[in-house]
């Protein structure tokens, strides 16, 4: 289950019950280097000392990672027995995911398999021997789960597709290796142009596959549609109406909803998580304050923000950016004739007017997000996405090597590298496999 080498692994490891605090861990030889390049105060990173600072990276939003605490533990005096870095940031799963993605961009860092931190801890003698059986069971169970996952993916055709992609590379590698190992024999030379075409096609497929991840992850987790707006604008009322049940408390008192409530509904066959949030305004109390923080976070994670304005409340100062997909609902039209411009839907939760239009709008948003997939395959798993990310980068390296006229041994090295990456899904391609291909495809041997 665990790739058999001493590389650096990263994972989200937020301990339960830490509220809005996210912890991401890095373990392995590259851990310190990786964080030093992101952290605003790398010089402060001394073993066992928590340092406060910012994380800076083009992919991390402005200000999002300003309040970070980074703790470095030098191996072997760490939980895993090797260099370990713990990064604590404020924020929910969105922030964690973002941070993990950035860490995975660093050279030599890969996502940890489940249980891998424990496994390393055990091997380095950081966990008591009496727990050996437990670790074995964990691996065993995880391996079984991985198989199950792989089987499920097979039905979805992922393994098939990866198999076809590997075959394309194996074909190229077979030709290159035959040219290298049997160049003293009559083997027809294959123009590198044909390799280029194959690699370009693979790149196109890879990009298309990566594009399915957005939809795939929504298939897994559901779309997120938070209802956001000024206090008392009718968010909870609309939430209940869309749910078809009275789930959220509705009162005439502004500031009723203090914490977010989520509930899943089905739209066009897809799960959509509706989120009722606290009204956005100057907070009156501490509980409300944290509720408002949560609302802001919801906006960031949203696939579609349902902004609720109403006839009897102030319009909300727009806190959402242009790029965030949103729909503006103007509620309580039963209270008077006023119909300000620039609203998408005019609605009354009381009479139900405008509800159909809103539902149609939500429906088309979901429908428009559907990605048919590549040969029916939709990536829905972060690990797979990570594999294809790296695969795409490696294919570019292959292309460059061919285009620059590098010798077959270098191109072969790049192709092997690419195959090894795909091998994380399909299993390894061995030199023996390539030799078998050569012997069955070419008449070699004097």
């Amino acid at each position, binding site marked *: *289950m*665990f*790739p*058999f*080498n*001493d*590389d650096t692994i990263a994972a989200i490891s937020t301990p339960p019950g830490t509220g809005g605090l996210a912890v991401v861990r890095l373990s392995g*030889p590259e851990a310190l280097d990786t964080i030093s390049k992101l952290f605003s105060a790398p010089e402060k990173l001394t073993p066992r000392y928590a340092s406060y600072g910012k994380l800076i990276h083009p992919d991390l939003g402005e200000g999002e990672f300003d309040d970070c605490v980074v703790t470095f533990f030098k191996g072997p005096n760490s939980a895993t027995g090797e260099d370990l870095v713990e990064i604590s940031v404020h924020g929910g799963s969105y922030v964690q995911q973002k941070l993990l993605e950035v860490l995975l961009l660093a050279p*030599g860092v890969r996502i940890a398999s489940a249980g891998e931190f424990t*496994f390393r801890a*055990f*091997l380095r003698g950081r966990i008591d*021997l009496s727990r*050996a059986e437990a*670790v*074995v*069971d964990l*691996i*065993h169970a*995880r*391996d079984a789960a991985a198989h199950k996952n792989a089987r499920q993916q097979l039905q979805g055709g992922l393994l098939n597709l990866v198999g076809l992609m590997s075959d394309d590379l194996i074909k190229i590698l077979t030709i290159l*290796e035959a*040219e*290298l*190992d*049997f*160049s*003293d*024999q*009559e083997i027809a030379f294959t123009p590198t142009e044909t390799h280029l075409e194959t690699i370009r096609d693979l790149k196109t497929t890879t990009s298309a596959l990566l594009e399915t991840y957005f939809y795939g992850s929504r298939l897994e987790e559901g779309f997120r549609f938070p209802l956001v707006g000024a206090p008392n604008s009718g968010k909870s009322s609309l939430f209940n109406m869309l749910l078809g049940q009275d789930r959220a408390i509705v009162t005439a008192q502004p500031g009723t909803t203090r914490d977010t409530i989520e509930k899943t509904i089905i739209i066009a066959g897809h799960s959509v998580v509706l989120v009722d949030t606290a009204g956005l305004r100057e907070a009156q109390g501490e509980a409300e304050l944290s509720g408002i923080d949560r609302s802001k976070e919801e906006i960031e994670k949203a696939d579609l923000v349902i902004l609720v304005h109403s006839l009897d409340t102030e319009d909300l100062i727009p806190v959402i950016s242009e790029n965030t997909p949103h729909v503006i609902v103007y509620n309580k039209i039963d209270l008077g004739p006023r119909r300000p411009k620039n609203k998408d839907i005019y609605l009354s939760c009381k009479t139900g007017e405008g509800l159909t239009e809103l539902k149609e709008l939500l429906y088309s948003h979901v429908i428009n997000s559907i990605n048919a997939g590549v040969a029916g395959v939709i990536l829905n798993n972060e690990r797979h996405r990570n594999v294809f990310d790296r695969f795409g980068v490696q294919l570019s390296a292959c292309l460059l090597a061919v285009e*620059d*006229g*590098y*010798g*077959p*041994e*270098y191109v*072969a*090295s790049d192709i*092997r*590298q690419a195959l090894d990456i795909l091998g994380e899904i399909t299993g390894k391609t*061995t*030199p*023996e496999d*390539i*030799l078998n291909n050569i*012997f069955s495809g070419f*008449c*070699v*041997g*004097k």
Partner: protein
Amino acid sequence: MTVSRESYAVIVIGGGHAGIEAALAASRLGKRTLLITMKIDALGRASCNPAIGGLAKGHLVREIDALGGEMAKATDVTGLQFKMLNRSKGRAVWSPRAQIDKLAYSAYMQSICQAQPGLELLEDEATSVLVNESKTGITGVRTRNGVDFSCQTLILTNGTFLNGLIHIGANKFSAGRIGESASVGLTESLTELGFETGRLKTGTPPRIKRESVDLSKTTIQTGDANPEPFSFSTNPFSPPDEACYITKTNEQTHAIINGSIELSPLFSGAIKGIGPRYCPSIEDKVVRFSEKSSHQLFLEPEWLNADQLYVNGFSSSLPEAVQLASLRTVAGLERVEFIRPGYAVEYDFFPPSQLRASLETKRIKGLFFAGQINGTSGYEEAAGQGLIAGINASRLVDGDESFVLGRQEAYLGVLIDDLVTKDTDEPYRMFTSRAEHRLLLRYDNAHFRLSPAGYSLGLVTEARYKKVLHDAALAKEAEDLFETTFIKPERLLGLFEAQAIIKKNQSLANLLRRPGVSVDQLMPLFPTWVKELDPALLNLVATNTKYQGYMEREKLQVERLSRHQNMLIPEKVDYLSMGAVSLEARQKLHKFRPETIGQASRISGVSPADISILLILIKKLVSRETS
């Protein structure tokens, strides 16, 4: 039964390429060594093609040289034609090859062995191995002449001689090589001790009378104009350049072969052993690749001014008459006459899963196997194993840890690691594609890679080691200079195409890294001392610089290889009871009994999950034993 009063530290059985290197290494390491061979005259005889080296094999020869072996020197002295293969490709896969004078080669090896202090030669045949009462350690060897020799270590290098069976058409007879009798009895003595054995097959083409060939109808092939020697010690070097001749089969040839195909023991089922797919017989090629209307044949001289030629590409076990009739359809061979026909030979081998990486058997302490007996093919593969076995036998006598090369250090490391972790179902031959760290294992850096080991083992002289260190320092200095010398664009005028697009000062290294730019083109920019470097060394520097990115990636991968790779597995581990390990892996581990976690991970059918579990169970086991 007479008992020799003499006791040897090392006894080597067999005087082929493996046996010679083993005996020389052991005696050079100061061990009293006896080499027993059926015919001293046949020492170092090349039983198949008259050539040493070739793709991947050339690397092996270089490595043997770097570790103080003899094969490279013998080739340089007795070579008839030298050629660097893969010259159109990058240097990582260049590989030297030489046609040799077989007679001179064998004579050279005889004289070296005879002159080697501490090495005794004896004409006899080993018929059984002698072991201690508990059958766990070697004590000696019994010979056909009825003598028991005692020894501390025994190295078996019996080649194709163990129960050798030659096939020519339906005709079969016991022999090790044509004209030399097979070795009978030894296999049985080993199977009695519990060794597993198998059968392999190999073949050789006909030898023809040179005067019966119309060479004017063939294409002449000569060697390199500026040949490079195999050995680091060879200097000066001005070998002959004897020609080979190329001709090819045609549809008529194939028709005759097809018409008699059932007469080939390969197709009639008479041959049970498995032959190598990379060295198929002509009948195999004609049948399996029926769409090819022609196959190349190389007529190679077997020695200087030889009256006989070797028909490379026409290995066959068809009846002699069919071989002759089909060859006579080939241009230049219309009136060809045989000195002897091609034949196939079947022989016993011992699946090398029974060996440690030191080449000592797991079953019997002090007993080593090297060469074709381990299911390999090729002179170079045999010689390499012989060298390692000789070194390790000697170290065992001294009580030293065995000498094991990693896959990232040498082709020799790849070779032996493959042998002990993979199932052999055909004779094993080295290919560059087997070496995952191929870009680091170049023929031109073999001495930098391995001379330190050769020197500390005691097989490489101080003088030669110093020369290697000196060269390495020069190379480093030149590499640094390339990185730190910046060239103005105007100085590039006329040096290479596309120089016009370079607008900024560039380091020599970066210029060299540009596609299509070679070290020769940049020569005018180098200081005199670099220009005057030995061309081989300068090219090595250029390769290191140009492909630095690839090298670094490889080095990084090597570094990342788990430290658990070298974690030892206790010998008595009971794999079959490891329920959490997959069934297939349990069985494979039980069969191979890997010495290290690294070896275990390379056994097919053992998954990373199995290794994770194995690591834990072994750690637990070891701690229980030590506590």
